[in-house]
């Protein structure tokens, strides 16, 4: 067992974990952060995407011990008590159906808009190609990211 110090959604944790334990299992099973689901075992689907020190990682491809000292943001902490503009945009554009890919998709979009605050549709599609959705055909996800980008631009002007 290895001791890790990790901050998740603003709360600090000290835990003993098996070195092979995946971050996603640590989040889900040790901390009860079940908002982050697992969709595959080859890091293709992106359902388990979280922010680690501000950048996206697929938490099924990170060991919990690698997160020692890190700050993790999951979908449960993203809104900081309210709704993040991307969460609001996904709701407003009907960008989810079953919702299983949604946490990862939203966090990937957060990272995308941070890198590129005003992406074209094509840039959005390319930026999200590491996250798979089986329900929406992506049309409304692209619209939601565009909407959040526009809201962000407006926010920046204000």
């Amino acid at each position: 067992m290895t001791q890790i110090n990790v901050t998740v959604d603003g709360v600090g944790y000290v835990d003993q974990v098996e070195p092979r334990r995946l971050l996603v299992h640590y989040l889900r099973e040790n901390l009860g952060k079940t908002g982050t689901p697992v969709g595959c075992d080859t890091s293709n689907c992106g359902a388990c995407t979280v922010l680690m020190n501000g950048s996206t990682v697929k938490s099924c491809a990170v060991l919990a011990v690698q997160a020692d000292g890190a700050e993790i943001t999951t979908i449960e902490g993203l809104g900081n008590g309210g709704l993040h503009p991307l969460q609001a945009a996904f709701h407003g554009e009907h960008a989810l159906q079953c919702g299983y890919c949604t946490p990862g998709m939203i966090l990937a979009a957060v990272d995308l808009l941070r890198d590129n605050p005003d992406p074209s549709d094509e840039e959005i599609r390319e930026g999200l190609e590491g996250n798979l959705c089986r329900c929406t055909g992506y049309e409304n996800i692209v619209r939601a990211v565009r909407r959040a980008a526009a809201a962000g631009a407006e926010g920046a002007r204000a």
Partner: protein
Amino acid sequence: MTAVDETQAAGPQIGRARLRKEDARLITGQTTWTDNIQLPGLLHLAFARSPFAHAKIRNVDVSAALKLPGVVAAFSGADFAAEQGSLPCAWPVTEDIVIPDHPAMAVDEVRYVGEAVAVVVCRDRYAAADAVAAIDVDYDPLPPVLDIRAALDEGSPKVHAAGNKSYEWKFANGDLDAAFRDAPVVLERNYRQQRLIPSAMEPRSVVCAPLGEEYTMWSATQVPHILRFLLAAITGIPEQNLRVIAPDVGGGFGSKLQVTAEEELALLIARKLGKPVKWTESRSEGNLTVHHGRDQWQRIKIAADRDGRIRGLSVDLLADMGAYLMLVTPGVPLLGAFMFPAIYKMDAYSFDCTGVFTTKMPTDAYRGAGRPEATFAIERIMDDLADELGIEPLELRERNWIKHEEFPYTTICGLTYDSGNYEAATARAKELFDYDGLRREQAERAERGDPVRLGIGISTFTEMCGLAPSRVLGSLAYGAGGWEHASIRMLPTGKVEVVTGSSAHGQGHETAWSQIVSDQLGVPFEDIRVLHGDTQVSPKGMDTYGSRSLAVGGLALVQACDKVVDKARVIASSMLEAPPSEITFANGVFSAGTASKSIQEIALATFAAHDLPDGVEPSLDSDATYDPDNFSFPHGTHLCATEVDTETGFVKIRSYVAVDDVGVVVNPLIVEGQVHGGLAQGIAQALYEEGVYDDDGNLVTTTLADYLLPSASDLPSYVTDRTESRAANRLGVKGVGEAGTIASTPAVVNSIIDALRPLGVKDVVMPCTPERVWRAIEVARGAPQDAAAQHAARQSDQTQGNSPSAVIDGGGA
């Protein structure tokens, strides 16, 4: 695109683009996926699975696993042989169908890679992963059976002792001999429907907790009610002692319409150990063991007059059942039997399907289930017929389709299409697509020898859904009815609980059902809560599949609301001191002259029950079960423009227009979303996806790295619109869940062939990968087929659909 309508304006809720009630928890991670569940002392299951496509099991030794830390128990199939029975097939399609015994864990023989042979029960999932690797199984390999075209040959190895044929099912109407004898034009085509892996984003998961003799099962299932009934039937556990809960379920697309080995074993192990157990599959385990879809070889023949009038149609199918018949495996191809004639009139039709066993994962329902296959074949051959006759392909379709004034129309299959307007949908699609402009551009590009050709693909589809009238299901030997149930509970505060027997897993029932009930009862949308997916809360239901929830379950809601209003009218009559016949009800208010009482006031008065008339029960609650009297027949016209690079074979969808007629729309936002998602899956069949087994029967596409589920960058933006012809039911609604998938596959492939037809290309086998497209062009240009095949052999795309003779040889007729 649909503008959101969240206004508080008065008037009907039906038709408004309300944002979904479901979203609040899903966008914030407050979800209840089955794998989230933790219970005190919860044990984890992991399965040892066959690495052979076909083998005798000589010995299973779990002793080494039992010595590992954290291992509580380990079992082989033999340990459950006396109690596991056979997993159910609910659709024995013919009298003499062969339904092999299907044990949840193999006992003597394995028949596909991934079949469970042993299970470990451990204190955590990591210990389970270690322990399963310590199980030692001794196999005696047997020859695999992989090609359904050869499986019926004498001398083929046998999947089961009874042979490789499960059934042959036939349908015919009209004088087919005369149609083909007299028609001046006859075309025959062979099409391949490749094997698909449904790939819901949430992997399967099941938790089962015993409490004395009672069991609660949570499962990522589309069918909690069917699962409860069948688990009780096969295990003998009394149905009243079994509660099944489908919590948040992350997509299904038919793949979670099943009674699985893992669900049954979770129940049996929980019973044996008296402890709660959990099993959650990995994606690679799921690709092996979640039922697959499609996998047919189709031979279709069409006879027509020179003016394009269809005289007759004849279809022979070979359908891959896989190793066993699961819940509706044999019936899936037959859901297409009545759909090959599609929207067209003809004199005669015959259909013949042979279900064949192979040593592969069983097939079963996947979005569209039978109808995508049928629609593909008819829409593909219609384009070829148009080419043969020199008639514009939309014009050919129009000459044959049922005119809008001819509805209701009884087809050659005996189905009565209640409504439709193919002219209107086609006109709208042509307009949105700029059909004539693209045809001009296509001609210009061909004229100047542009290496990137433009193709236009057409799919004027219909389908049958809303499963289904119980009598019809009975006549097709299906094992259950097709009704749906709903309950309304009027709460004392005037709020409403709606209980539905359909079990949503992404479809948005909580929102759409609230809209329907709001209109029927005149209570605010926000005051309605929809409950589903738990057999204790919603004890009666037929669940969600076959685009049935609205077309069947939605109408059950209306009937349940009627009963509430009828009961409330009696009480209103007493409160308003007027005879019931003089009471009117509108917008939630009962009125007699100038006096009135709201339904909420009546709900409170009923709760108090102080002044009810003699003999009136103090309840407004109601139950209703609705059995539809017909299928639902959505239709539409889809047009796809692709740019096909003749030098690389790369296909780019330039524009896609879908105009669908799904009758009256309850929530346009949800309908549009269903169409989008359906399109993505249908396009994926055309261009990307194929479940591939190698020559030894190993699944090659076990992960999402190998099975190409399209991402946002692989798919186009869609233009969607609707036309509307009311269905002949009280809401005027039709199903929508599968329409996009059914329509889009032929639209895409037709566009590729349309682009390449001038080069002599007649067909490209799906998925139309760049290599396959390039190769088809090379062969058409006169490159020797062998050379092209040799070139292909050096590429990575060595899949079954790529076999040089992509035709049916013999069998099936």
